């Protein structure tokens, strides 16, 4: 007993002293140019305030690669990284490795965020991470080209989009051979899962696996959604769209070589940048409907504190600062990163810089979650099986009907004895 008391007081003393003296926190965040800059700048502001130091660890750009790296770090119980940037679909996968922030962060601070996102970060009552920014798929379009070809508004349905894209593409190809109508994320990875979820839901084809864990993918509407997307490849989208990720699509759109693009909100600020050929000519709209509704996939990133961190108190302080209103406002203005704090959507400075934030508010709040909740630790396998099936349809290896039937078998196999 005495020993235990001594040990506790000793560790408390060490903890206290570590809080008192400046520590170095390692923060893992994205490595795309602007994202990294904003991450570094935010971390530096916190460091200046608290007298601590922050080292920024540059994670791989693609979310699948990032997860692989994080899992290795966490499985080894490595203390190298204190704060991780987590994708919205990961909390179920990684919950056991993160500090429960409930109780360590004031409830008022937690409740300022969108409830849906806080729910997505809560696993069995444990708050795994604090939301940093939210994401939802958007349709970007060229306002100048729409006007040039006599269209008054952004397309409301996929059929309309295909017609408009075709007309603009045919016209523009006369002077620019590299021009294409519509670019999106067709590479076989998590990004394709997001895009294809939007098609599925917009056609009323369900969400692959429903909230109860039943496999619902094998239905006619889902097949129709995939066939529709496949019809775009090589007609309004380049053949190589099946190798594009977010950055590849943005590169083409920003070079002025596409009329429409599906991407996340971050593309807005970059599209208005100095090196962008389409600055001032970009419009943003909700993604078209396939007959059932308009659907955007919920994305977004959170910040969690590793249980293996040696400086948890400082790490929590960093997370609270970065996820706080002040920092979210800066990021919204400089990078068009969507705040997760409700009140910021009424902020004049933010709306002046990102006019679409206000009008597309409902897109962000009603975004469709990927089935990471019901499938838990097996989500990644589900997502890969899904994106592979979609990829097969896009590449013409299979028809939609055949692909969703095969996918249902694959998912049953992954489900095995249960999610």
């Amino acid at each position: 007993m005495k020993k235990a008391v001594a040990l506790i007081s000793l560790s408390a003393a060490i903890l206290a002293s570590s809080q008192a003296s400046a520590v170095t926190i390692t923060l893992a965040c994205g490595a795309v140019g602007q994202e990294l800059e904003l991450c570094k700048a935010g971390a530096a502001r916190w460091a200046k305030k608290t007298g601590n130091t922050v080292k920024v660890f540059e994670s791989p750009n693609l979310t699948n690669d990032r997860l692989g790296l994080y899992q290795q770090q966490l499985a080894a119980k490595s203390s190298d990284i204190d704060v991780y940037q987590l994708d919205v679909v990961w909390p179920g996968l990684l919950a056991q490795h993160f500090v429960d922030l409930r109780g360590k962060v004031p409830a008022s601070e937690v409740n300022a965020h969108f409830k849906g996102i806080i729910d997505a970060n809560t696993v069995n009552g444990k708050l795994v991470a604090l939301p940093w920014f939210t994401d939802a798929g958007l349709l970007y379009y060229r306002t100048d080209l729409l006007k040039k070809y006599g269209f008054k508004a952004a397309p409301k349905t996929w059929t309309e989009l295909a017609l408009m894209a075709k007309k603009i593409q045919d016209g523009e190809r006369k002077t620019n051979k590299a021009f294409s109508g519509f670019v999106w994320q067709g590479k076989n990875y998590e990004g394709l899962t997001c895009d294809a979820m939007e098609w599925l839901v917009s056609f009323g084809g369900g969400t692959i696996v429903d909230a109860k864990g039943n496999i619902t993918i094998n239905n006619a509407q889902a097949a129709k959604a995939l066939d529709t997307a496949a019809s775009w490849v090589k007609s309004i989208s380049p053949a190589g769209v099946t190798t594009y990720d977010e950055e590849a699509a943005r590169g083409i759109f920003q070079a002025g070589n596409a009329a429409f693009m599906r991407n996340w909100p971050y593309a807005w600020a970059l599209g208005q940048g100095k090196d962008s050929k389409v600055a001032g000519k970009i419009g943003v709209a909700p993604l078209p409907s396939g007959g059932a509704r308009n659907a955007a996939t919920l994305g977004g990133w959170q910040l969690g504190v590793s249980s293996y961190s040696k400086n948890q108190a400082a790490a929590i302080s960093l997370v609270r600062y970065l996820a706080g209103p002040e920092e979210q406002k800066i990021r919204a203005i400089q990078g068009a990163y969507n705040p997760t704090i409700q009140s910021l959507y009424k902020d004049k400075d933010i709306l002046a810089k990102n006019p679409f934030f206000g009008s597309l508010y409902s897109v962000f709040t009603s975004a469709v979650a990927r089935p990471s909740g019901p499938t838990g630790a097996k989500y990644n396998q589900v997502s890969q099986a899904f994106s592979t099936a979609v990829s097969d349809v896009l590449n013409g290896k299979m028809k939609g009907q055949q692909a969703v039937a095969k996918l249902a078998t694959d998912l049953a196999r992954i489900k095995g004895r249960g999610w």
Partner: protein
Amino acid sequence: MTVQVPTPARPRRTRGIEAARARQALWLLLPTLIAIALVAGYPLYRTFYFSLFEANLTNPEQRSFIGLGNFWFTTQEGVALGFLQDPKWWGAVKNTLLFTVVSVFLETVFGMIIALVVNSAFRGRALLRTAMLVPWAIPTVVSAQMWAYLYNDSFGLIGRGLLGGQAVLANTDTAIWALIAVDVWKTTSFMALLILAGLQSLPGDMYEAADVDGASKWTQFWKLTLPLLRPALLVALVFRSLDALRVFDVMSVMLGNVNAASTSMTGYARQALIDNQLLGMGSAVSVAVFLIIMVIVVIYVTAFRVKFD
């Protein structure tokens, strides 16, 4: 019972010295053997061990023994769970073997031609020998990325320029040939170097004699060079085949990890182990990759009597 056979003293003493030397050698080797056991043996043992368990990568402590269930298991509802029942695994095996056979064959043929050219005396030979190693010296990750740009359908020199906007990497069926091209471009020079080393050990007077006897260059190549080059060629073949069988980086960089899993055995193993966190399944796949490569090595070494010394 024992019969004292009088043996001559001399050979026995020699054997004694040899035995002592062998013992000494063993002691000197011991640190290396321990190091190998620690850095190679132990992980290998753990891989075999985990292949018999159902375990999660992020939490290996919680595991349950399922025997060969990772390899072959059908549930009562008829759902096949073993990876040997997964068509994607067999697709990966097929693609890896295709990749290995075609790329090693092409590299050997081209490597031989380059080695023969570089072996003859001409001005700037030394420069050429250095220059031909450049592709091989570039890290695979870098060259793979470079080729991925070349194959890009909207701005790539090959994808846009030669193929007129086709996306060869989009489909795993066409991508495998694009990958073979990259591997041949990269590793032919290594093959040429190995063959060149073999060529330079061939005696020059043999060719003079052949010339005197009136043998054509063609006959000289088939009757003299090729048979004498066989040992060097086989060692090179074994090296390259093993390398090609465990190919990973080119696929991973150029196709992304999800598609790489259907083009290479190691990619499939990585996906199971890292992306899907299935420690047991991933280990089982790794064991299978190990066994496949081992069988191929044994076939090579016994069928062709390769001597490594």
